[in-house]
């Protein structure tokens, strides 16, 4: 057990737990934040993506100990932002959502990508999504959604 301090969705947070506990379990089981999903449990699929210091991280392979002092944002908090509104509208309009299980992770990947590169090329978008698997769509509508978001949200990133 150890006392781990970090910022979670804007709030100072202290967790007294085994530092090897997966961040994903901390979020889902201790905090009740179920937007991040477990698709593979080994850092392959990206369904568990969260923003750590505004960079995309697979929370299923990040031990709680590594969260100490970091700023963590999940889909629950990101969905309150203006950037989210633009991204979510773009996903809806592009028809990018099928079963939805990968989508919160995809939204986090989209934010992480656009934050670094507000006007990505198609290749850069595909690269930026390569850590997030989707089995339903064949990705083209997701790529389209990100292109739409980048275009409509010009100036937001």
């Amino acid at each position, binding site marked *: 057990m150890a006392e781990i301090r970090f910022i979670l969705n804007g709030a100072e947070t202290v967790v007294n737990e085994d530092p090897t506990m997966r961040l994903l379990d901390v979020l*889902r089981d201790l905090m*009740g934040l*179920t*937007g*991040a*999903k*477990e*698709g*593979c*449990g*080994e850092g*392959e*699929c990206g*369904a568990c993506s969260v923003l750590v210091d505004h960079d995309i991280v697979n929370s299923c392979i990040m031990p709680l100990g590594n969260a100490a002092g970091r700023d963590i944002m*999940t*889909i*629950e908090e990101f*969905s309150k932002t203006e950037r989210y509104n633009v*991204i*979510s509208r773009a*996903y*809806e*309009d592009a*028809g990018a*959502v*099928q*079963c*939805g*299980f*990968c*989508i*919160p992770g995809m*939204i986090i990947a989209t934010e992480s990508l656009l934050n670094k590169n507000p006007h990505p090329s198609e290749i850069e*978008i*595909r*690269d930026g*999504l*390569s850590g*997030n*698997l*989707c*089995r*339903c*769509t*064949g*990705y*083209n*509508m*997701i*790529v389209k959604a990100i292109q739409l978001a980048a275009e409509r949200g010009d100036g937001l990133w």
Partner: protein
Amino acid sequence: MSDISKSIPKSDSAGKIAGETIYIGDMVLDDMLHAMTLRSVHAKARIKSIRLPEMPEGYFIVDHRDIPGDNCVNIIFDDMPVFADGKVNYIGEPILLAAGPKRKKVKEIIDSIEVEYEPSEPVFGYSKSVVHHEFEKGDAASVFCKAERIIKGSYSTGYQEHIYMEPQGVIGLYEDNKTTVIGSMQCPYYIKNAVVRTLGTGQENVRVIQAATGGAFGGKEEFPSLMGCQAAVAANKTGKPIKLIYERTEDIETTTKRHPSRIDFEAAAGEDGSIEALRVRVFLDSGAYIGLSGVVLQRAMIAASGVYTISNLSVSGDVYETNTVPNGAFRGFGAPQMFFAIEMFIHHFAIETGQDPLALRKRHLASMGDPTSTGGTFRDPIIMGDMIQKAIDMSGYDEKIAEYSKPGDHRGIGMSWVLHGCGFTGSGEQKHIKAVVRLRKEKDDMVTILAANTEMGQGAMTTLRKIAAGVLGIPIEKVIYNNPDTDLVPDSGPTVASRTVMIVGGLIARAARQLKEKWVPGKEILVEERYRQPDYIEWDEDKLRGDAYPAYSWGVNVVEVEVSPVTYEVDLKGIWAVYDIGKAIDERIIIGQAEGGLSQGISYGMTEVMECREGRIQQRNMTDYIIPTAGDCIPMEIVIMDNPYPLGPYGAKGAGELPLVGGAPAVALAIENAIGKRIDRIPATPEYIMELMENG
């Protein structure tokens, strides 16, 4: 609504994007126990003894002795136990559940259970036939007797794993003499019927509720019945909610997959170069239990002549039992194996007889009025001629195939033609499913669709609401479709077999017409419709004769590749497809189905390797079992034709499976064109291409 096909926002997208949609893994109930499964480590063995650790307070073991009814999962063929009883037939077969408040502790209990096995010789390969079917059309035997030239081919296909992003999961509950199963599923009534039988109880004592389902592709057709029964038995024993969620490795190793197959052809060449007679033999590996493999075999066999009319046909097939993880439903249901085989074979036949493959294929292409493989009739207009031309024009197929066929060119292009029978095979809808749907109008004039079909990403919720709203002439916001709950909705059948829009949507459209006639504002009205098979459909279930399907969807797929001459890696360069699904109820949803399905079909043909050695699955996680990433996929150009089917709602036929079916043969033919070597198995991986290039 001017044109039904015009896309609208999907009903379920907003919650999914925000992460607010609750999947089964997100659900937490008071006093809930976590369950895990103890599994066989032998492919075939007798269980001599099981030694349990001392159980801490509040932890339970649940096994076959706790089953009040039949220890059998109610699938089509009743051979799979809910929990192993004294013997195991595959590695990973469930023996018992351990359940308790802390997952970590449950895992410790599972790890400390000692099972003593007496292993015996397992069966692998195509040796133990457990189901056999055959049918004839014309008189193939006498054509073969006189044939001057017989061309042969043998094709094999590997496993395919669904990799729905959400692993399998259910929660079982027991309250007031009623057992409830909530979970990720395609077929609530399959689970209900299975649980009723396993608990040995009445229909009124079991309730099944679908949770948001994170992808299925057939993988959540029959498999969740097993987990549902286990969770139900555990909930009844403990009196507490039981949550049974698979981890990915467990899901990959122990759930159903697409059947590996071998398909052999012999064709008698006529003097004019046509295929006068075709003999087809199908081998399917069912794994340890038959389940629905016999039906998968039938669908594969019925597709034996592909989209071609061949007058003399002799088809036989067997399901072989092996001591491996049971195989089951997967988008396409036997057709992807057969279409890979027949599309390759007709090409190889043409090349061996010195003909242009495209010309031979066009010559045999089925037309309206032709007899089907099983002696039924293609009753509706077939517009494949137009579709093929469109695909050729879009892709530049003619010029490319000429150029890429030159020696030393590493590029290739391939085209596949497919059909997919919509709905259950034969009289399945009429005899077995007997679908019922209801519409209920409330006093506030909101209309709820009461049907058991599930949204699993394919857009059922939006599409079915759109049909009802369109017929009623009311805004779509006035139509409600909730995740099915068997206490609230009638059995409209499973969400499988490309039947949801054509069959269930058709019933909803009929119910909506009935409601429209009876419509009185401010009054509660309930209407019901039941499935009626068109009178002209005749099907002999034993002999496999007659109209196997009421309607067919059609597709043309073109794939262009470049194969590295150094690493033999295959890069996709272009993908084009043209589909006739009658009428798109929502064009963007259909394009989504097309792109996702075709992508799965192409990677089935070139990427997705799963092997089983001595009964053990070798690719145990998503690092080993590769599905395409965004970087592996490329834009697709897809055209949806308008060819309304008179009995479908707004003219719609089935669409969910069709795009997958043609992916593998299109990419395999493209690779074949690129490397100039004959491909007779999938996936066509770089290793296999290297083998072909280096060994001739």
